[in-house]
């Protein structure tokens, strides 16, 4: 009898501990967001969004950082999506089970685990120095594209895998060629899954700082990039720079910039979840 009671107590104690730890995780999230809102919220106004960075914390704004982030993401999308989706289609639809295909698979899984700063070193060695693009927005976006490629490839494969085989077989039976089947049947019905993966990969890219520092993104850029070879700054870079300054004013500016960055990240994740749910319902 004693043993049973002991076991029941252990069971209840563990339940309480589990609840406690889960609540701890959630409350850290709440504390983090609350503190940043408390410090930074009043700093956000039109001037903050449209001013150039400055030596004076009260005058500093995030205009160049925001435009830099948008430009960088646009270029990354242009480079990464066709290659990532293309590679995903190849691996799922064309590649036969062979040594080569398992090598590709192991390789992609390994790339997904390479720390982002190593991609920065790759970008520095190849794009900045070898191709001589310098610390430009072109070098930065190419580096980020390689970084998010594994995420897009994996998401594309998962989405294609989820397409019912009957749809493909019906298309083949009607005399469609392989590519016609892929472009007219497989891609439209896996679209939701692919889009989800792309948005999630971009929300990862938008917060990346380390590889861009290595590639040579600037903390202080007093102008908006006009060509692919211009220097650039991005939102996380600006936050990092303000974080390392001693004046309290910059901590406030950093908090305000973090609010904008988190807002973008959460909205993107929200959109991704929306697409995923809609798509999963459609598949069923």
């Amino acid at each position: 009898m004693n043993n049973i009671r002991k076991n029941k107590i252990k069971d209840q104690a563990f339940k309480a501990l589990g609840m406690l730890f889960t609540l701890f995780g959630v409350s850290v999230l709440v504390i983090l967001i609350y503190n940043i809102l408390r410090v930074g919220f009043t700093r956000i106004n039109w001037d903050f969004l449209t001013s150039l960075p400055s030596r004076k914390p009260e005058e500093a704004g995030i205009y160049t950082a925001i435009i830099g982030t948008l430009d960088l993401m646009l270029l990354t999308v242009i480079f990464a999506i066709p290659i990532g989706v293309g590679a995903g289609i190849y691996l799922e639809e064309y590649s036969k089970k062979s040594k080569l295909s398992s090598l590709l698979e192991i390789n992609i899984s390994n790339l997904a685990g390479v720390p982002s700063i190593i991609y920065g070193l790759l970008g520095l060695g190849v794009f900045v120095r070898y191709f001589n693009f310098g610390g430009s927005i072109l070098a930065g976006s190419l580096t980020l594209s390689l970084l998010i490629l594994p995420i897009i490839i994996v998401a594309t494969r998962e989405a294609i895998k989820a397409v019912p085989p009957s749809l493909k077989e019906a298309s083949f039976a009607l005399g469609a060629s392989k590519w016609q089947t892929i472009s007219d049947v497989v891609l439209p019905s896996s679209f939701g899954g692919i889009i989800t993966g792309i948005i999630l990969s971009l929300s990862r890219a938008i917060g990346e700082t380390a590889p861009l520092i290595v590639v040579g993104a600037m903390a202080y850029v007093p102008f908006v990039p006009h060509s692919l070879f211009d220097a650039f700054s991005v939102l996380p870079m600006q936050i990092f720079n303000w974080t390392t300054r001693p004046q309290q004013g910059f901590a406030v500016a950093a908090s305000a910039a973090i609010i904008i960055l988190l807002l973008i990240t959460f909205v993107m994740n929200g959109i991704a979840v929306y697409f995923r749910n809609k798509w999963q319902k459609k598949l069923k």
Partner: protein
Amino acid sequence: MKIKEKLIELILKLCAFITILTTIGIITVLLFESISFFRSVSIFEFLTDTEWTPLFSEKHFGILALVSGTFLTAAIAIAVALPLGLTIAIYLNMYAPKSFRKTLKPILEILAAIPTVVYGFFALSIVTPFLQNIYPDLETFNSLSAGIVMGIMIIPFISSLSEDALFAVPKSLKLAAFGMGSTRFQTAFKVMVPAASSGIIVSIILAISRAIGETMIVAIAAGQQAQFTLDPTIPVQTITSYIVQVSSGDAPQGSLEYKTIFAAGLTLFLFTFSLNTISFWIKKKYQEKYE
């Protein structure tokens, strides 16, 4: 028509091969600059010296000083993330009502979606002052605060992946244990965790690999002094934060300082590559077991 089909296949194949090129690129860049680095510095000094001062006038190139900082912060992170992550995974899988699990899992995953630069700021401006209230001797830059915050960031890696592994355990095992009169606690630790052990181990290895490669939190909150130490209250430098420090300055191409970041990067790559490879093989084996 035939030609078009072949052409498309070729283009798609090229896309897939860019991933191979990426890996070759990473290895070539790291090796190329590292070999040139090891022409000036002996591998013996690199691996045994305990001081790392390439930016000072008296230069030392002992990677151990950076490796110790890297492992110290990662160890603190895992010490936080492992008990919390695993307990949360078991709680969500065995105890929590279904609706609870469905809402809490995505909320916890937000922790992993927050950009790391935000966590760095959080560690430096909120967690460090809080810890200083408890332990006043804690320095402004230290590995404790950076490690704890990094641990919180990787909780979802362990909790979500381990929960997936627990979820994949055949229901019959769980029901059999309950049928024998086991409590949920006994079922969890005697049946479920052992059955899901490979998946759980994979999640832990991936979390370690993630902690070793994490950059911005340590660059902001752990300091920039390379010290061969296990003291969590003083500033340390990790491999990643050293690379950030040199990149933020202006190291001329071809200089020894410029080459050090590639030698440091190669060391980091070897660590994470080994961990990722181990986890990949465990995952492969595990999939065969259940499918």
